[in-house]
C-alpha cells in the first residue's frame, strides 16, 4: 500500500513538470529612441522565450542582428558601433515572475519579472513589469520598459550627428505555446 502511494506521488510529481513549460519562437521586440532631432525605431520578431508556469521562471533571448531599421546605415551603426553584435550577439533576460498566476483561468494579470538583463555584455539586475494574458488557454506576455545606454556601457559619442536618446524604450510581446 505504501509503495503504491509513493509510486503514485512520484509519478504525479514527475508528470507535472512537462506540461508547465511554454515556449515562444517569434517574440516581437521593438526599440524606440525618442530624441529632438530624430526618432529611431527598430523591430525584430526573432526573439525566443521560455516560461515555466509552475516555477514562474522566465527567459528571453533576442539576436541583436535581427533588428530591422528604416535606414540601412543606422542598422549598420547599431550593430557595429553601439551594440557590437559580433562580440555580443544576443540580449538576454533570465528571471522569475514574482507573482503567482493561475494559468488555468482566463484573464489579464499584471506581473513583475525580476532577474538579470544582459545587453551589450553587461548584466543588470532588473525588476520589469508586464502583463500576462490567458485567453482560451493561450498564454501571452507583454512588457514595456526602458534601458539606459549608460547602464550597459553603450557609448554615444558627442561627435555623432544623429541624435540618440540616452534611454531606449523597449516593447516586448510574446505569444506562448505549450512545449512538448
Amino acid at each position: 500500500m505504501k509503495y503504491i502511494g509513493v509510486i503514485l506521488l512520484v509519478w504525479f510529481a514527475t508528470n507535472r513538470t512537462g506540461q508547465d513549460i511554454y515556449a515562444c519562437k517569434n517574440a516581437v521586440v521593438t526599440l524606440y529612441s525618442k530624441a529632438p532631432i530624430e526618432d529611431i525605431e527598430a523591430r525584430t520578431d526573432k526573439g525566443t522565450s521560455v516560461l515555466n508556469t509552475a516555477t514562474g521562471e522566465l527567459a528571453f533571448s533576442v539576436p541583436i542582428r535581427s533588428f530591422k531599421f528604416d535606414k540601412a546605415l543606422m542598422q549598420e551603426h547599431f550593430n557595429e558601433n553601439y551594440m557590437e553584435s559580433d562580440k555580443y550577439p544576443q540580449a538576454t533576460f533570465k528571471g522569475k515572475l514574482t507573482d503567482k498566476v493561475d494559468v488555468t483561468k482566463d484573464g489579464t494579470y499584471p506581473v513583475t519579472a525580476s532577474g538579470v538583463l544582459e545587453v551589450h555584455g553587461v548584466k543588470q539586475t532588473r525588476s520589469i513589469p508586464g502583463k500576462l494574458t490567458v485567453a482560451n488557454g493561450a498564454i501571452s506576455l507583454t512588457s514595456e520598459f526602458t534601458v539606459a545606454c549608460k547602464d550597459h556601457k553603450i557609448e554615444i559619442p558627442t561627435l555623432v550627428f544623429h541624435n540618440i536618446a540616452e534611454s531606449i524604450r523597449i516593447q516586448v510581446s510574446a505569444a506562448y505555446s505549450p512545449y512538448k
Partner: protein
Amino acid sequence: MKTSLLFISLLFTVSLSKAQTTTKDTAKSSTDSLMNTLSIPEKGEPVIATFKATRLILSQTTETVKKHGLNFLVIHRFGDIGGSAGGGKTLWGLDNSSDIYIGFEYGLSDNLNIDFGRSKFESLLELGLKYNILHQKTDESMPFALTLIGKTGLKAYHSNTPVFDNYSNRFSHLLQAVVARKFSPALSLQVSPMYIFNNAPFPFLYGNERRFLALSAAGRLKFSKRMGLVIDYVHPFSNFRNSSVNPRFYDGLGVGIEIETGGHVFTINFTNAQAISEFNYLNDTESDWGKGQFRLGFTISRIFDFNKKHKSGY
C-alpha cells in the same frame, strides 16, 4: 502499527521533498537547455561594415550604398607639399588643387549601385555600375566579399591634345574585381585586379599602351571604434610606364586616417597620386613620394536615405 505509520509518513515526506527538488531541478535545467536550443543564432550571417565607406584613398571598397541610399562624395587633392611646386611659396601645396572629384552613388538595390562622378583632372566625367556579388559570412562558409565594378570615363571637353578630334578617343573603360575580408572587427584587407582600356592612350605618348592590367592592395586598421588607419597602394602592369624615363611614372601610394561620425565618413590622407579617378591615376601618376611630390587630400562621404519611413507604432 505506530512504527509502521511513522515509517510511512517519513517515507512520504522524504519522497515528497525529493520529488519537489527533482521537479525544481529538471524544470530549471530544462528551461535553460530549452532556451539554449531555441536561441541558437542563425548561421551564416553576412559580415557587415568591412569598410566604413565605398572609398578608401585611391581604391573603391567592396561596400555598396544600400537600397534607396544616396552617397554624396567630395574628394580633394591639394598640390605637392615638397619639391619644386611645394614649400612655403604655395603653403605646402594648399594653394593648389591637383584634383577635385564630386560624385554620387545611388543604391538601386542593397547590392547594386549606379555611380556618377566628375573630376577636375582632365575634366573627366564617369558613369559606372557596382555590384556586390558575394558577401563574407560569419560562419566562414564564404571567407571573403567580392564586388565587381564596371565604368566608363568621358573627357567631354577639348583639351590640349588633337587626339580628341575623333570623339570615340575620349572614352575609357574600366573593369574591376574587389576581394575583401574582414579579419577582425579592427582589420580589413582587400586586393583588387583592374583592367583599363583607353580608346586613345593617355598620356598620348609614343609607345604607350592603350590597355593594361593593374593591381591594388588596401587595408584598414581601426584604432578606436570610429577611427582607423588606411593604406592604399596600386601598381599598373604597364611596360611603357615601368620603363619610361621621361616622363617617369610611379605607383600610387596613399596613407590616411579615416573618421566615421555616423552619416559622414571623412578620410584625411597623403598620397603621391595627383588624380582621384582610376582613369587618371592608373594612366598618369608622375609624382614621386621621394621628391616631396605628395599631397594632402581628403574624402567626405555623406549618405542620404530615401527610404520611406514606416508608420511608427509608438
